[in-house]
């Protein structure tokens, strides 16, 4: 470059700098007042709280919404910025899973349907008015009825008042209400309970009362029924009854890894194990209720050797299971998930139900009185019936509400063709799903945070849904839509609002006073009549006579399509946070993968990221490999949201669809696919992140070579903040990670950044494989070291040690040298390589208490300094010190098992002090002498099985 060009460039750049520097100064920005202030006293630092119900999955957890005052696009308003569980709620007791917390991304999703639409003559969608859409529906309904056709209402799971209103609507408008569509219909469980107890229901499992829990395939801490409640109750049972929890599964799941003991079982052989338990317990006279002879003689009875051979469990383990069962006072068996969605699934579920009855579980741990509300949920058989009606051109108007059969049914193209046999298809949805694309009228639904409603997840609980924000677009709630259609048909000038309808219903059910209490609490518990579960001898006998017990003999590879803890059945995949947070078992974030057994991988010479072609059902699908330890040979796993639905056998008795695709073949293609695996290694290699083996205890090591200190120890006045993490309680659900993302405005960086290792999470779960037999986790976040290696290397003093023991990061002092990150042995510092600001309108969810960091800045866990500041401010107002338990970090708040304890280490009586000084406590990489403020309590080795 010559001098002339250099000067030119210099001129341009300095000029640009001058202009841009003017823009940086925000002194002349606007300051926007309210036009009309809200009724409550809401201001920054004093957010509004609403109690409502999470609708991200059918579990319906109680949810507390934090809504903060903010100026957005020159309007001052309040916006929901954080979702937490309601403390003491009968379902989730203060915790909320990562999907629930990410529901904010659904509320502010840019792809939401914003106004009603109708298909015009050319087949394109055009914006319409609600009135016009309703008029068309009313005309078509009448015309279809005139033609002798049936109108149908096909929806996702509906409970509470909405279910009654839907019935009213269907009656009024002569529409048939179909059984609801859920991918996880638990059809075999319902059918089994119908056979054994004449109750086609899913009971409420009272894990908190159990002292021995055997989960057979049911992924109780991931997706099965209510994972948050299950995790919470497992912890309660551990504290109360010293629970031991065994898990049996043919594949591998996070639930299995977290259980006290996990047994891998041969494919479809769960039924033999349960039959063995039933027969042996009966022979030992350990059953609380003896099975009638006409039933017990129909239960397969094999010797322990045969069972061991069939199930792949050693005789020793079978005896262990048996003795655990016989010695338990209040055992509980839960069959479900991969173990009931298979050819022997119904038999497995029936034997589990028989065990539940015979061992007296139905009297305490299996609660049919508070059964989960799955009564109106149908199965694949009901879908077949709908398809038949469509095939025979019997359907006039088809309403499809809150469900997406075209995405979830294997024969999607066929279903789309069949849908065309109707006069009119009306979709009620929040997103343009594949099903909505095939409809004629699209009625956009409000998010549950914008609408009124209620939900009844199980008998005896009524949850309130109340809005925390006005509808952001021209959307309405399903209740309002149905009421308005009915009103327009009857010629009424205006329809009743759904919230008035709800309040009328609540008043008539509970009275006015109770309704107010329910709205404040967010839920109401109702007494339910007690009806003991009675064994139906005839039903069980009839079933067992015809039952077939398939023995899986083929050793061909099998693909298991598993539920996903991040996407549930696929519905939460639209939430970007769910791709940003790693899958806890594999630590993969974005993209798809196939889990391959480590043994198979070794044999075939496959490594992570090698591409394989999977031949199944006549098609070839390509996936990168992720080597999965603990997975039996010849079993492959793909999560449900990563593969399009596969045609698998449907049990004609129950309508349950199998999750297994048999006779697949897997071959390497030779390609290598970049895949963001966040964990660098699956082996800890005794580095000191997990508690060391007994032989080489670090404390002994430390005494030999005392760690030298270059500086005087830090002095603390009143506070030294610290944390204790109990890895025995932690179930790896990653709710803490989601809480941190939302609370601290962490950046969503995307796949490309993740491939370069540029994720921004301040807290992460690290799985470590030990001896190819167990997977242990650690939860890694900034350790707030007293002698922090990051501090002395900062050339600009942007990170330093505060009086309260916090390793601080001053954003506007940071110049981005990244020395601190290089020097951090825990690798918990995150660098903003770019401006990762959330695009509109997602930026509405930013927490105003926390800065949004810009490019070139280092960041890390602050122990939720904004929460500490808030509590200290409050304490100062009251002229006292902060009390123990007054501050919880976001991660600790949402933990379903209370594995994380935060508090003041200077207070010898604080919970965190006691845990930090307990015999079990250790610190990560302690021999480095960093003096971390985070103390870990390792996973307990269950002694009994040794």
């Amino acid at each position, binding site marked *: 470059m010559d001098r002339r060009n250099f000067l030119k460039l210099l001129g341009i750049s300095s000029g640009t700098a001058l202009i841009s520097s003017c823009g*940086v100064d925000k002194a002349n920005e606007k300051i926007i007042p*309210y036009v009309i202030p809200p009724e409550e006293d809401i201001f920054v630092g004093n957010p509004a709280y609403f109690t409502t119900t999470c609708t991200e999955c059918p579990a319906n957890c109680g949810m507390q919404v934090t809504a903060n005052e903010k100026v957005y696009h020159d309007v001052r308003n309040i916006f929901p910025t954080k979702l937490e569980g309601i403390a003491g709620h009968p379902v989730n007791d203060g915790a909320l899973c990562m999907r629930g917390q990410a529901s904010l991304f659904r509320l502010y999703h840019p792809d939401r349907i914003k106004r009603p639409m109708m298909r015009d003559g050319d087949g394109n969608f055009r914006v319409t008015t609600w009135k016009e859409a309703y008029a068309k529906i009313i005309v078509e309904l009448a015309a279809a009825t005139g033609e002798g056709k049936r109108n149908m209402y096909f929806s996702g799971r509906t409970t509470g008042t909405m279910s009654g209103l839907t019935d009213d609507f269907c009656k009024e408008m002569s529409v048939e209400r179909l059984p609801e569509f859920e991918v996880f219909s638990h059809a075999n469980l319902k059918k089994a309970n119908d056979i054994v107890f004449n109750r086609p229901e899913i009971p409420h499992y009272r894990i908190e009362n159990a002292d021995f829990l055997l989960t057979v395939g049911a992924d109780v801490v991931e997706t099965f029924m209510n994972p948050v409640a299950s995790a919470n109750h497992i912890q309660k049972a551990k504290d109360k009854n010293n629970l031991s929890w065994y898990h049996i599964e043919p594949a591998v799941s996070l639930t299995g890894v977290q259980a006290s003991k996990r047994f891998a079982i041969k494919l479809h052989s769960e039924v033999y194990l349960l039959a063995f338990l039933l027969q042996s317990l009966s022979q030992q006279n350990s059953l609380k209720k003896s099975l009638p002879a006409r039933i017990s003689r129909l239960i397969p009875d094999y010797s322990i050797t045969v069972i061991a051979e069939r199930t792949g469990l050693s005789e020793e383990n079978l005896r262990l299971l048996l003795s655990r069962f016989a010695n338990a006072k209040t055992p509980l068996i839960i069959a479900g998930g991969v173990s009931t969605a298979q050819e022997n699934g119904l038999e497995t579920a029936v034997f589990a139900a028989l065990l539940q009855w015979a061992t007296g579980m139905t009297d305490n741990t299996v609660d049919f009185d508070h059964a989960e509300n799955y009564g109106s949920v149908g199965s694949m058989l009901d879908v077949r019936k709908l398809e038949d009606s469509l095939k025979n051109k019997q359907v006039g108007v088809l309403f499809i509400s809150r469900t997406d059969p075209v995405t979830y049914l294997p024969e999607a193209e066929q279903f789309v063709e069949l849908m065309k046999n109707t006069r009119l298809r009306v979709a009620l949805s929040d997103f343009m799903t594949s099903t909505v694309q095939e409809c004629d009228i699209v009625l956009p639904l409000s998010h549950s945070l914008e609408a009124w409603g209620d939900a009844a997840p199980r008998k005896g609980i009524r949850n309130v849904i109340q809005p925390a924000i006005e509808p952001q677009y021209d959307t309405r709630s399903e209740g309002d839509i149905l009421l308005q259609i009915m009103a327009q048909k009857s010629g009424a000038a205006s329809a009743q609002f759904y919230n008035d309808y709800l309040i009328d219903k609540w008043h008539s059910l509970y009275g006015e006073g109770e309704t107010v209490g329910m709205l404040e609490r967010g839920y109401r518990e109702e007494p339910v009549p007690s009806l003991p579960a009675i064994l139906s001898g005839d039903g069980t006998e009839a079933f067992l006579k015809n039952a077939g017990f398939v023995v899986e003999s083929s050793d061909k590879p099998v693909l298991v399509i598993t539920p996903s803890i991040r996407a549930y059945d696929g519905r939460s995949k639209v939430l970007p946070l769910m791709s940003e947070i790693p899958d806890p078992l594999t630590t993969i974030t974005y993209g798809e993968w196939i889990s391959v057994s480590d043994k198979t991988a070794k044999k075939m010479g496959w490594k992570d990221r090698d591409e394989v072609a999977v031949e199944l059902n006549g098609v070839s699908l390509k996936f990168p490999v992720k080597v999965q330890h603990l997975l039996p040979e010849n079993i492959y796993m793909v999560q449900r949201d990563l593969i399009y639905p596969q045609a698998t056998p449907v049990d004609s008795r129950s309508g349950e669809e199998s999750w297994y695709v048999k006779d697949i073949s897997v071959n390497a293609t030779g390609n290598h696919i970049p895949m963001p695996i966040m964990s660098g290694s699956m082996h800890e290699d005794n580095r000191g992140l997990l508690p060391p083996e007994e032989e080489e205890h670090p404390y002994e090591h430390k005494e030999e070579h005392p760690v030298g200190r270059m500086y005087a120890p830090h002095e603390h006045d009143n506070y030294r903040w610290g944390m204790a993490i109990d890895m025995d309680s932690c179930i790896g659900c990653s709710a803490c990670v989601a809480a941190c993302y939302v609370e601290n405005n962490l950046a969503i960086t995307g796949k490309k950044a993740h491939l370069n290792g540029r994720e921004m999470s301040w807290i992460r779960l690290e799985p470590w494989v030990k001896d190819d037999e167990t997977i242990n986790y650690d939860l890694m976040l900034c350790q707030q070291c007293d002698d922090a290696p990051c501090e002395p290397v900062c050339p600009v003093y942007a990170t330093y040690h505060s009086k309260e023991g916090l390793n601080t990061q001053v954003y506007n002092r940071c110049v981005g040298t990244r020395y601190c990150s290089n020097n951090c042995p825990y690798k918990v510092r995150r660098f903003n390589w770019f401006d990762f600001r959330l695009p509109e309108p997602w930026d509405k969810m930013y927490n105003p208490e926390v800065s949004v960091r810009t490019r070139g800045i280092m960041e890390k866990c602050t122990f939720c300094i904004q929460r500490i500041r808030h509590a200290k401010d409050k304490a100062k107002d009251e002229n006292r010190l902060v009390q123990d338990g007054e501050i919880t970090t976001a991660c600790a708040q949402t933990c379903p098992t209370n594995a994380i304890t935060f508090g003041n280490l200077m207070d010898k009586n604080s919970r965190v002090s006691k845990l930090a000084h307990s015999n079990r406590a250790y610190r990560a990489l302690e021999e480095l002498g960093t003096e971390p403020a985070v103390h870990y309590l390792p996973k307990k080795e269950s002694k009994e099985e040794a």
Partner: protein
Amino acid sequence: MKRRVAPVVITAYFLLFALFVLLMGYFWNENQKTPVQPINFSHQIHVSKVGLQCTFCHTTVEKSRFAGIPSVQKCMSCHKSVKTESPEIQKLTKYWNEKKPVPWRRVYSFTIQNYVYFTHKRHIKAGLECSNCHGEVKVMPHIERVRKLEMGWCISCHRAKNAPTDCWTCHK
């Protein structure tokens, strides 16, 4: 001769440019000190003449980080009947009728990124007067910024009053 002209011209050119930048900076700063507000609101009238307390409008100063700015409804609670003939009040009425917020210009703000946690509440509770930082607002017909809110100024006071000087007291 020719060879001598060029440096003079170049120097003059750069001097002129520097002067231009300085002038721009001066006016920019002045403009910021007393930004032109959408309504010619006078603190002098409201405080000295009418006798309103600061907290009458800035209601959350004792309980929040922010002092708070009155809602349009609050302005209208008086100005529905007071001084309705004034063209400035008619501007206010127009905002109210259109249910739009008045786009006031911010006078006090921390520069660069908003990486600062500042709470009015703590400072008021510590016994500071509004005027300690904001000057004699009651004599300002046009509100004017009297401090630049630079860290050195904050720290000097914190040191003098023995208030905490840990970075995370204020930085976030």
